[in-house]
């Protein structure tokens, strides 16, 4: 696989998301049509999809999607996994060979669960145990890249335009209640397979339009807590930051948004509600190294929900819409209209104000 660092190309990127609040699973065909409308925002150096609810028959097992540069990387990774996990099922991910997608790595899928005695000996919960193992694979096995490892979800990504990536992975054959998509136009990091979006750890996945000026500060911070940024793209760090803040610090996603896209001090100072002023001041001070500066609009997929968030200055486009139980998010309105011509409402979220949608109680996750 070609790695990043060879060319620089000016900005772009497209994101799109579709979420069914009622839990009804829909084919990937709709998200493919949505992201394809924004073809001009990409340059063919990366496209990808994250889908939730696609593996109901294995919903209690971690689903690994892994890229390999070589058979030896696969063999080494499988030896690593066998020592730590019970591998319930493994197979190549089915792909449709197309002229538009080239240089594909070996792409494998595993359904696993931690070996009980290993998990007990580790004195970790299964999520921490699994995340450490996955970060370990990415950081220590040459030519192996775990691209997703959540339950009942998966990431499908490649170098190419997103609609071609969808065709390659036969995305229309999957059904999920939540879909995100990304069309890439790399700015300071040229495209390679593992560097395409979404980026994922456990149940979280992130697609991102923008550029993180604070990347190095954010990276140094998460690396203090055991994460390793090995995929050479700024968006990776957002995934780890959100994992740390939600899973290890116990913050809600709404609070995460107030940390990574916190209001300006002048805005906080002007607030009339003293309790709110103190709360936001606390979050800014307590997690100051988690502030993301620079332009971004992101969609965060998680089990049972989706979050859309702009940077506080709103330096990238983001449109939201609702039709009944279905929510849509996209860089451009046209990408919503192509799949839902007549939404009940359509709006542009404010900078720094998260829109979070979740499954109805009866839908479950």
């Amino acid at each position, binding site marked *: 696989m070609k790695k990043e660092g060879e060319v620089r190309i000016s900005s772009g990127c497209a994101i799109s998301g579709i979420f069914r609040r009622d839990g009804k699973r829909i084919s990937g065909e709709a998200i493919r049509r949505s992201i394809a409308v924004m073809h001009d925002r990409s340059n063919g150096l990366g496209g990808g999809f994250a889908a939730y609810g696609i593996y109901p028959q294995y919903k209690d097992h971690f689903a690994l999607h892994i890229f390999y540069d070589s058979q030896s990387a696969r063999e080494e990774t499988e030896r690593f996994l066998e020592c730590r996990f019970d591998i319930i099922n493994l197979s190549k991910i089915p792909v449709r060979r197309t002229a538009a997608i080239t240089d594909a790595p070996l792409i494998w899928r595993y359904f696993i669960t931690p070996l009980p005695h290993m998990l007990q000996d580790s004195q970790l919960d299964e999520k921490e145990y699994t995340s450490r193992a996955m970060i370990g694979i990415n950081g220590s096995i040459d030519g192996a890249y775990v691209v997703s490892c959540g339950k009942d979800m998966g990431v499908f990504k490649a170098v190419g335009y997103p609609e071609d990536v969808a065709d390659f992975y036969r995305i229309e054959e999957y059904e999920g209640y939540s879909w995100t998509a990304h069309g890439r136009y790399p700015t300071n990091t040229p495209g390679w397979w593992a560097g395409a979006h979404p980026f994922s750890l456990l149940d979280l996945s992130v697609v991102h339009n923008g550029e993180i000026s604070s990347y190095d500060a954010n990276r140094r911070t998460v690396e203090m807590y055991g994460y390793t940024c090995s995929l050479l793209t700024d968006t990776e760090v957002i995934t780890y930051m959100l994992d740390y803040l939600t899973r290890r610090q116990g913050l809600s996603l709404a609070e995460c948004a107030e940390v990574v896209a916190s209001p300006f001090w002048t805005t906080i100072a002007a607030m009339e509600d003293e309790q709110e002023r103190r709360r936001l001041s606390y979050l800014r001070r307590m997690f100051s190294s988690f502030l993301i500066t620079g332009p971004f609009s992101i969609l965060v997929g998680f089990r049972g929900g989706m979050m859309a968030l702009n940077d506080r200055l*709103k330096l990238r*486009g983001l449109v939201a819409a609702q039709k009944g139980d279905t929510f849509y998010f996209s860089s*451009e309105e046209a*990408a919503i209209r192509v799949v839902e011509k007549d939404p009940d409402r359509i709006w542009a979220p404010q*900078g720094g104000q998260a829109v979070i949608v979740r499954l109805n109680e009866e839908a479950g996750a």
Partner: protein
Amino acid sequence: MAKCTPGGISGYAGEEIALTGCLGQRHIGCAMKDGILHVEGTPGNAIAAYLDGGSIYVDGNVQDAAADTMNAGLLAVRGSAGDALAYGMRGGRVYVLGDVGYRAGVHMKAYGEHRGVLVVGGRTGSFLGEYLAGGIIIVLGLGHEGEDITGHFCGSGMYAGTIYLRTVRTVRNLSDKLVMRSVPASELDQVVRPVVEDFASVFSIPVDRCLEGGFIAIEADESKSYSQLYAAV
């Protein structure tokens, strides 16, 4: 009138064209010099960029960067607009009946007889008129009486031009390098009314409703240096 659909153009007569079924196509009407263009659907980014004359009427919403660096002519949107509307606009008229996103009128400017005019029927996002260097922006807040009609940091970094707001409320996070004043009746009649009458005429809405209540104006405080204007953010 000629009709242009994704299938092609039919009946082209030279001066008036209708585009239907638009869905994200960029740069529609870019640098158009004359004629009339009717657009239906959801045109893509940068519609009317570099517009140099003529009129574009949009029956729907426009996305980001509409009227970028526009020189002359009219863009009338019977819907809402995305971010960075009229970026660097140097002349002509941009009328939006609904709301607009962040940074509307960013770095609009004026030179000689050329002066951009932006009128928003609804509300605006934050950073309205950021770095404004000339021209006028009028925000009517129709249907939002008694509410904030702009977001945060209105006029950040502006050093010329005027922002008129049909409101009596205080503007949030206004830099202390700007001045805010009530608009006297004489200025309202001479500057605001003619523009609003034209706006109301384009959309066939009652002009009196657009002028009800008081207006405030925001301008750069000439006594303070530009170098510190952005410090408040």
